């Protein structure tokens, strides 16, 4: 590290410094430059870290003087290894659970639970908190007996064991999986005060599996095979029709989720992964893929998963999940802690690719501030955003708005309602609004409420 380098670094403009920071993130050689710059700048300007200035905001606050005591954890031994051969969360986290609304469905075998998004961090959903949606309960399938068949318009119908599938080249990718009914209860106004209820019909995990294109090509797809009809081995025997172009794009047959085998609730031993598309297409307990010339027009693509429009017509084959975003902190499960600085965070995702920008408004959509990403930005995956907010304690209306790499900008609810009506059930992807009550608002001061424009 010669003086020459220090000097050169010290004259960097603000712009080039930022570029260097980006290069640093990319792991380039500019690392040394960034570090040196800080050092050189403090020497040159005499404006380095000032400990007195740093603690100024604490001035005048009463300090605690009571001597801290040791707790039980410090004075006794904890439990030994293998107390839990399969580890469990701390009992203090027992409220962090999948939950359902008993009035949504008449039984628990054809029902849904929602992921507690308000309690999650980063972009990975733990396997035990992954949302559930079944049409015929959860089967417990012995993988040694499970088979996958590919047949129909193919040259060579084939059957695979689970060991056969694991012999194929593998792919591991992080994707969100979202029920298109996520947010469905909010078409006609709000009725739910938790992000678990408004957005919890989704999760984001790392899947490992075999590319569907590899499996389909293995069986020799005939040119007239334009659709595939995947089918489950459970009581629901769920089927959907997927066009071959979509199947060959980036779909895969997953056997693992977050590093371990899929959970039974998510399709053990194998499920289809259709990145970016509605979760109903991600057939679980997959046992058969029929290659076909036409779509099957089955119940899950005609009676259900079609969107009724204001004029009485209905949209079908709405495969892609449009870009969406939500602020998870602060959100209705929290209460503000008083005026001051907050780091507003949330999730953004797009079924059509990567998230490009997330903007946050504190005034109901009039003005927006661009958030930065605190997670990797991945294709068709949750992206975690964060933005600094100085709350002055007055009433505020928080909204987040995603723009994805295709250039699509998430719409406000009044606009979506005008164009799409309110009878769609599915694909309600407009923005939500959290109303922060003014700090001086009596017993509701600092309350965060789900409201809808």
């Amino acid at each position, binding site marked *: 590290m010669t003086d020459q380098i220090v000097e050169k670094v010290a004259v960097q403009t603000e712009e080039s410094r930022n570029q260097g920071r980006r290069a640093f993130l990319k792991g380039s050689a500019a690392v040394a430059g960034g570090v040196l710059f800080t050092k050189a700048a403090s020497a040159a300007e005499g404006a380095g870290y000032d400990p007195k200035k740093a603690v100024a905001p604490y001035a005048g606050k009463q300090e605690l003087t009571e001597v801290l005591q040791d707790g039980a954890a410090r004075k006794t031994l904890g439990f030994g290894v293998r107390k839990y051969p399969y580890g469990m969360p701390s009992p203090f986290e027992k409220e962090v659970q999948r939950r359902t609304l008993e009035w949504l469905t008449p039984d628990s075998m054809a029902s849904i639970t929602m992921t507690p998004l308000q309690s999650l961090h980063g972009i990975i959903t733990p396997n035990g908190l992954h949302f559930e949606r079944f049409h015929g309960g959860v089967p417990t399938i012995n993988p040694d007996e499970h088979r996958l068949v590919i047949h129909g318009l193919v040259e060579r119908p084939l059957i695979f064991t689970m060991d056969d599938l694991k012999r194929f080249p593998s792919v591991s990718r992080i994707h969100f999986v979202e029920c298109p009914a996520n947010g469905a209860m909010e078409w006609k106004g709000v009725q739910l005060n938790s992000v678990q209820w408004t957005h919890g019909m989704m999760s984001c995990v790392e899947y490992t599996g075999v590319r569907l294109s590899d499996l389909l090509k293995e069986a020799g797809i005939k040119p007239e095979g334009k659709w595939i009809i995947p089918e489950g081995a459970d009581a629901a025997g769920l089927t959907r029709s997927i066009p071959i172009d979509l199947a060959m794009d980036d779909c895969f047959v997953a056997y693992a989720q977050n590093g371990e085998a899929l959970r039974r609730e998510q399709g053990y031993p194998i499920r289809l992964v259709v990145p970016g598309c509605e979760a109903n297409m991600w057939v679980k307990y997959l*046992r058969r893929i029929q290659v076909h010339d036409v779509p099957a027009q089955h119940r899950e693509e005609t009676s259900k998963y079609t969107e009724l429009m204001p004029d009485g017509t209905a949209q079908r084959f709405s495969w892609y999940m449009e870009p969406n975003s939500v602020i998870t902190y602060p959100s209705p499960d929290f209460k503000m802690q008083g005026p001051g600085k907050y780091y507003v965070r949330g999730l953004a995702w797009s079924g059509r690719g990567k998230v490009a920008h997330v903007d946050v408004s504190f005034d109901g959509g009039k003005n927006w501030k661009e958030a930065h990403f605190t997670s990797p930005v991945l294709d068709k995956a949750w992206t975690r955003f964060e933005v600094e907010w100085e709350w002055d304690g007055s009433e505020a209306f928080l909204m987040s708005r995603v723009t994805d790499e295709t250039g699509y900008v998430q719409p406000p609810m009044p606009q979506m309602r005008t164009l799409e009506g309110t009878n769609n059930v599915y694909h309600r992807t407009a923005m939500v609004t959290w109303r922060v009550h003014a700090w001086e608002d009596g017993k509701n001061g600092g309350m965060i409420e789900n409201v809808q424009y």
Partner: protein
Amino acid sequence: MFSTNKTLIAAAVATLFAGSASAMSGSSDGASGEKINGKYAANYEEIIRAADGKYLDAKVIEAILGKDATYGREGLEGKLDPANPYSFEVEDSIDGGNHGNAQCKIPAAFVEVHDSAKANYYNDSKFVARGFGTPIAESALAKWNIVVDGDGKGLPDASVGMTVEEGAKIYVQFCGMCHGEFGEGAKGYLPLAVDENLITSAFDDPAPMKTVGNYWPYATTLFDYIRRTMPFWTPNAPFIGDKGYMGIVGYILQSNYVKLDENGTEIQDDDFFNSEMLMKANKFMKNQGNFFCDHRPVIHNERCMTNCPDAQVGDGKGDIHHYKQARRLPDGTPQYNVPQRMHEDPPGVGHSGM
């Protein structure tokens, strides 16, 4: 997509808008080949690639479709035109009937998907099977292959069936306890036969109930689905069999007053209901022809950062204090299912299922 990251070509975006201007102003007197059917920029792929793949950007859509209300960015109908690069629709009818149903495909403008499918499939001339699977005869799948498609392929032959009256008895025995004896619904399960108008006049009206008669576009779906999944506790039951499932379908179609021909012939109790009758009914499902392929995105906003227009603020008229709240319990607690908990509303969320 499995393909590698796209690279940013900032300069190309500028070119795009220059190019789009000419594509739009070219109108009818433009050089031939510039437009598809005189409406859409034929070089849409070029325009999209020049804009770094931003095929849903408001400006890109406008550059390709133009702006007008019929075929352009402002219009929805244009998207149902097979020539439109943003249309999910193709022309070929899959059943030759009067359904107005056609296959839906990935729009041409979604170039990323098509590029990926080409790389992974159509252009993969080197692919040779790895040989990890085991060949299986189609005949070995006789029990597993229960798919019936919208054309009726997969239906049992015409000798399999029973009279609608017999079908009704089976329905009452195995289905009525949840779906109601006449398909009116029971125990929180949704009805199968309610003749409700699908159009509501106001946004906060209760959503219409969608049932077989007023919503389902295909009768074939009924046979496939009921045989596949019902009775709920023991699906695809051999003691009901294809014959019994056919009878159940006949009874449900009758309960929904589905007709069999142009003359409005109704299904009679003593009709022998089989796959031929089913395929007749399949052509006269009341709501057929009312389904259209995915038309999204219908919204293509520009990203506004400061002083945004009233249409995008608050209630859509610029008022941020005009909002709806969730109802509260009498003690003031915000709650999620107030009408149900106060027994003002029946269980359910006012629409047919999730």
